[in-house]
């Protein structure tokens, strides 16, 4: 290409850029309040190392979109769902989100599910024009909403609510010395820090350690636990390391419920851990930052569980992971916010969706949801489970 053509071409390009504001196509308005196209995205680790929490959440979101469309969608327009599998990787998330950022009909994200992914990609979402809002069902790190952005919202409780609640639970159960462990992941490290802080502030001696993701030999650490003389082991983990860990505890004569107590966190109220640990997990406790609809008695929750089962099979709930309830809830919130946003020329602006999220009040299977100015829910609860026999039983709800 010769020089003169280059200049002409560049001139065209810059004209094109200047006219960019209009976005893709101007199809004009349809009927007054009916938008032309509405899309939302579901984002999370749907495959990969965290598929056990992601798969069930995706099913829940798909169900939520289907139900919403069946009830009329956004004034007649059905919502399309994009599926962004970020595989628990923030860089992959950024690339996937790029697809949505430049498309003004993508109005929000249900997810990302992992705190680390949110923290690693929120800048791009915030800097987009207009910014792309997200409603997460499980990101619990405090920085997600504390860092002052306008896009992040979440329906689950934060680490600084769960940590103290966990600490208080152990103290109430008579803990004297707690060995605090995490699994070196974006979720567990922050949470374990919060719990340890609470325990130390209440004069409970603690020792801190971590397991590496994928570690299977815990012999050295367990010997340390015995040396420390702990009566409680707190293991913040998303699930995979728990079964080998408690099995090896038993191999070194630490029997849960007999000479030691165990408290796990989200992902560890999974009954398959009992099978995988061949019973060593029996008697262990676990807390969760969202409710399990199957453990609630409200009509909204029960009918949701029935609907989930009839859509995905009678054993679907047991395989759905810890967030199949909060994912549905988060989707409901986002969809209602979109529905309540004004339609101008057949389009809904993300800025209006963000305003709705900030000011509106939404009815979900867990009751009414309202966000505070940072994007956190007011009044989130922590739920305690215990392994009894071959299932996890809901004990009670606690707060810090």
């Amino acid at each position, binding site marked *: 290409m010769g020089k003169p053509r280059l200049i002409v071409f560049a001139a065209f390009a810059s004209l094109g850029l200047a006219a960019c504001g209009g976005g893709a196509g101007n199809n004009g308005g349809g009927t007054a309040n009916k938008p032309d196209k509405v899309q939302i995205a579901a984002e999370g680790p749907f495959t990969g190392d965290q598929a056990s929490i992601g798969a069930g959440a995706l099913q829940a979101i798909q169900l939520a979109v289907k139900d919403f469309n069946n009830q009329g969608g956004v004034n007649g327009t059905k919502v399309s769902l994009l599926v962004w599998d970020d595989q628990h990787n923030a860089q992959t998330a950024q690339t996937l989100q790029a697809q949505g950022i430049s498309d003004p009909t993508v109005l929000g994200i249900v997810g990302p599910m992992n705190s680390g992914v949110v923290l690693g990609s929120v800048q791009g979402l915030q800097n987009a024009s207009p910014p792309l809002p997200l409603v997460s069902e499980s990101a619990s790190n405090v920085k997600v909403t504390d860092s002052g952005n306008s896009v992040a919202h979440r329906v689950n409780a934060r680490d600084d609510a769960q940590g103290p609640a966990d600490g208080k639970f152990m103290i109430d159960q008579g803990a004297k010395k707690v060995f605090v462990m995490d699994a070196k992941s974006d979720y567990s490290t922050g949470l374990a820090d919060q719990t340890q802080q609470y325990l130390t502030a209440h004069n409970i001696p603690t020792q801190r350690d971590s397991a590496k993701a994928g570690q299977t030999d815990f012999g050295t650490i367990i010997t340390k636990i015995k040396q420390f003389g702990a009566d409680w082991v707190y293991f913040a983990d998303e699930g995979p390391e728990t079964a080998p860990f408690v099995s090896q505890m038993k191999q070194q004569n630490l029997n849960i419920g007999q000479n030691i107590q165990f408290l796990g966190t989200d992902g560890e109220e999974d009954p398959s851990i009992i099978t*995988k640990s061949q019973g060593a997990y029996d008697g262990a406790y676990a807390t969760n930052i969202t409710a399990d609809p199957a453990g609630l008695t409200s009509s909204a929750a029960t009918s949701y569980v029935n609907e989930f089962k009839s859509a995905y099979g009678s054993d679907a709930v047991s395989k759905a992971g810890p967030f199949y309830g909060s994912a549905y809830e988060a989707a409901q919130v986002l969809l209602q916010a979109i529905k309540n946003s004004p339609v101008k020329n057949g389009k809904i602006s993300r800025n209006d969706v963000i305003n709705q999220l900030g000011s509106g009040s939404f009815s979900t299977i867990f009751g009414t949801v309202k966000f505070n100015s940072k994007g956190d829910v007011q009044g989130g609860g922590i739920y305690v489970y215990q392994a009894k026999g071959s299932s996890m039983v809901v004990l009670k709800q606690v707060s810090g």
Partner: protein
Amino acid sequence: MGYFLAQVVNGLEVGSLYALVALGYTLIYGILELLNFAHGDIFMVGAFLAAGVAALLVHNEAAAVPAGLLIGLMIVASMAGAGGLGVAIERVAYRPLRNANRLAPLITAIGVSLFLESAVQVGISPAPVGVQTHAIISQTVFHLGSVDTPFSKVLLVAVALVLMVGLDLFVFRTQFGSAMRATAQDREAATFMGIDVDRVIMVTFFVASALAGMAGLLYVLSYATAQFFMGYLLGIKAFTAAVIGGIGNIRGAMVGGLLLGLLESLIGGYISTQFQDTFVFLGLILVLLVRPQGLFGQPLTDRA
């Protein structure tokens, strides 16, 4: 004192696994001067084969066949399966490159390692697979003072020792062993002496891989789990052990493995579990700088 002993026991248990896998690395390096990066993954495949047999024959926490037979089948599956895999890999991926530049088989070995890991991840399971060991071996926990250790780990150490002694006898007291040592010393000269080098290499790969497969079985019996990346870190550590002991030297690999396990446990128990691996590798680098031939190796001649 009790704590020290407990960590020593941990170290010996983990070290026995390292030693078994290190033996494989050292055998292959001695014969071909090839660092078989895929060896750790052969260990992983052995573990999965054993887990597979268990999954087939154990239902609802009860074995469908007598325990002895079950274990026998698992041994055959893991050792023969891993051994066969090793031979196949040698034939397909390494033999064509036997006379190539040193880089070539190394790069191929990395490819084989990644292949085995991905194949198991995609074909079997990305999540860890559980094994119902309660139905296979005794779950008694032995108490020696303040040290508690399960039967499976004691078995691990015992079997590893037996295998190591057996291998030592095989390599140093049998005719085939002499052939192996001759090929390791000088491949060309061995051909002139009438040794079928290809066959020796094949058997070496089989033996090395079978040992790794056995290690996989012992692992499964102790840890009741198998996952696709379990061979990666363990392979690197076993390989570190082989180098520390003197790569190419069988007794070096045995001692290196046990020593590495001990070091790891003691460093983890007294200094830091988090930086355990870091110290282990720093140790490796230190050994390579100060005494590159390892503990038992011959001083290296300057070959380009």
